[in-house]
């Protein structure tokens, strides 16, 4: 006995430093590399441009990442349970179109708040639909959400036969423009709030921890008495709802809705989550990491524009930076 007791010692030492480290580790689980990448990126941009590190620009960046930021929260949940959601871009579009159709004077004109609620409800239903295809029909998440991606896009188009709807009340567009307390627009505040709330949920609520368990192994989770199917449906519904919310935010930002909105956003969103350290096989990831991933993409695009880098070269740099940001993490892990 005594022999392995002593073997194990190094593990239990330094507990205070450990705890502090582990709190940080938790928030940005698996995303130290990207976090370093983000910090470096910001440093480089602060030095090489005189505009990057201005309040105004930083607020701009925050406004620019709101849509992807909100979608990435839902995607984090989905990826945590080992799923994937390709339909978020289409759900964003259908929510926008429903909102516009129900709320715009040229169409049903039931007032914008009703339109927003209708859009969000449809979005959540679409997400739930994906969830049910996975849990009740046994489809792989990739196929279920691919199907939903196609169906939701078709429906979004049918609502107005492919036309956009332009012009919403001022109170609505000002949600994303007017900066309260001198700096934060309501949409950005919403994103921050949702991020923090989801972070707390994932860390401190038993249900949040159960999502990690499902992603780690659905079988183990089931054997441990976790209602895997129910939670799975619920996660896809929330992911859909948040995509719908992102659609509402986008509508406020553009003062218009269009059925082709959000094309290709699924890849951006998944990329942000994975850059933030989540694993596509589930069970690994954090909201902090996702926030870092979203910021890396946002800051990078903003910075390259500020530097006046030509659009084609931007694509190359973005690719290289993404690889490097994640690689530092992979190296670290390997070094251990």
């Amino acid at each position, binding site marked *: 006995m005594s*022999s392995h007791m002593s073997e194990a010692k190094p593990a239990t030492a330094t507990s205070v430093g450990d705890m502090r480290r582990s709190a940080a580790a938790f928030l940005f689980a698996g995303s130290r590399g990207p976090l370093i990448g983000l910090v470096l990126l910001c440093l480089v941009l602060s030095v090489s441009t005189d505009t990057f590190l201005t309040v105004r620009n930083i607020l701009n960046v925050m406004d620019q990442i709101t849509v992807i930021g909100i979608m990435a929260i839902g995607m984090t949940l989905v990826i945590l349970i080992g799923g994937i959601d390709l339909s978020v871009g289409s759900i964003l579009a259908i929510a926008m179109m429903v909102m516009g159709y129900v709320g715009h004077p040229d169409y049903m004109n039931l007032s914008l708040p009703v339109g927003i609620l209708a859009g969000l409800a449809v979005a959540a239903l679409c997400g739930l639909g994906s969830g049910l295809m996975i849990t009740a029909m046994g489809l792989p998440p990739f196929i279920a959400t691919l199907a939903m991606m196609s169906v939701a896009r078709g429906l979004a188009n049918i609502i107005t036969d492919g036309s956009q709807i332009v012009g919403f009340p001022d109170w609505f567009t000002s949600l994303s423009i007017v900066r309260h307390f001198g700096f934060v627009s309501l949409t950005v505040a919403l994103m921050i709030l949702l991020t923090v709330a989801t972070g707390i949920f994932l860390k401190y609520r*038993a249900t*949040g921890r*159960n999502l990690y*368990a499902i992603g780690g192994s659905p079988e*183990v*989770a*089931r*054997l*441990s008495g976790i209602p895997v199917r129910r939670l799975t449906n619920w996660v896809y519904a929330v992911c859909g709802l948040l995509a719908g919310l992102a659609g509402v935010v986008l509508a406020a930002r553009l003062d218009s809705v269009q059925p082709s909105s959000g094309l290709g956003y699924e890849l951006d969103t998944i990329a942000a989550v994975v850059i933030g350290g989540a694993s596509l096989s589930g069970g690994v990831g954090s909201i902090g990491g996702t926030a870092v991933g979203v910021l890396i993409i946002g800051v990078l695009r903003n910075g390259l524009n500020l530097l006046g880098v030509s659009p084609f070269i931007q694509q190359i740099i973005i690719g290289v930076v993404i690889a490097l940001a994640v690689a530092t993490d992979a190296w670290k892990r390997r070094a251990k």
Partner: protein
Amino acid sequence: MTVPHTIRQDQTEGSHKGLSVAGLCKSFGPIRVLTDASFDIRPGEVVALLGENGAGKSTVSNIIAGAFRPDSGTISWQGETYAPASPAAAIEAGIGMIHQELKLLPDLSVAENVYVGRMLTRNGIVDRAAMNQNASVQLRRLGLDVSPDQKVRTLRVAAQQQVEIAKALTLNARLLIFDEPTAALGSAETALLFEQIRKLKAEGMSFLYISHRLEEIAGIADRIVVMRDGRVVARHQTADIPIRRIVEDMVGRSVDRMFPPLHPPAERTVLDVRDLTSQDDSFQDVSFSVRAGEILGIAGLIGAGRTELVRAITGADAVSAGTVSVDGEVVRLDGPAAAIRAGMVLVPEDRKLQGVILDQTIGENLALGNQDHVASSGWIWPGAIKDFAEKSIARLGIKGRHDQPAGKLSGGNQQKVVIAKWIARPPKVFILDEPTRGIDVGARAAIYEVIADLARSGMAVIVVSSDLEEVLGLSHRVMVISRGRQRGILDRAEANGVAVMELATS
């Protein structure tokens, strides 16, 4: 072949508040796995469930624990009919289970694994402090002193098994099913586990205890139930039964001597290891050699560094210094491929993660290391895989068809697949890490026979085992490792339990 058995009737059947299983049947597709499983467990009793690999022990257990549904048969529990629809329902009813294959979440912490699915909360907030505290206490009782915040991924197999046990012990269950809890444990850990079981038993808790380590049964069980081919073939009212008798019940015939006779090795050195030091310091400066026809046992406590050593020798992990040579030629240690080309093969410790591909068929798994046998100039015909697989299946008595996924096999049969995979080459150096973990006595004897045969045919064989009797009975010489250092190599004549333990704890 089939020895008729008179089954002693249990007088108290059904009349108690424990568990009563009657006539359970279960098939997986066309394969009938349980034909008639019936037995009782009374409150405060430890019943050992014994049987060969594939006898159906895990299947019965899974039914009781709500993971499978039976095709027919009934269970009563605490005086009422009991038919759990899910593991959650079983846990709710007070029945928990430790599964044979580890069921842990590698990326969650130790404490979270202990409490998965039933996290402690305070005001709706996960109470990490309480979970860490309780988990630590429970784990320390089992002899494991790790931080409850640590990720389970970073733990050794033995420690993971202990976490699994702690998870079950904190369930507050009235009946716990342990499916081979000690397969990965050393004797010290086993003793601590038994202490816990006895304590809980005194509080009225019941246990169904499955193990292939027949020696330990007398020390813990009150009664013994033996299964064969999906039915209960014997019930013993006391655990104090000669192992010989139990084995006969299990395999349906008498089993002779366990360990085959050893032939003297040749003079020629096949494997020579010089000053080998691992990159992560799990062992240092190990030097030894193995001759043709020789079996070298490697003994040591859990975590001594044996697994790391044999993995390094076969190129699976990197080393920082030292050389390994086979037949006088130094082997490049830059990956398993080079080691295999040089004639060294390893049957790894963790069969599920390192030994078999669970989703592939037995035939495909067997073909994996044996392309020379199943392929000609790189072409493989499915028929060749089938023929090859059927030969291997027959040779080791694997219970399964060549086109069955390896994941569907009983644990013991999976292990046989891994061994069979390497036998065919044939290699020059054959290394087995815990070769009989989870393997039934009958098959174990067969594996010993195979190991002795390999040596007789001129291979150099290394057997790493935590089963002391096994190392001693099987080896020409025994090397003892403790805390990453080689403490000595004992000849067969001087190798006995006391001498080995002395070195192992030094």
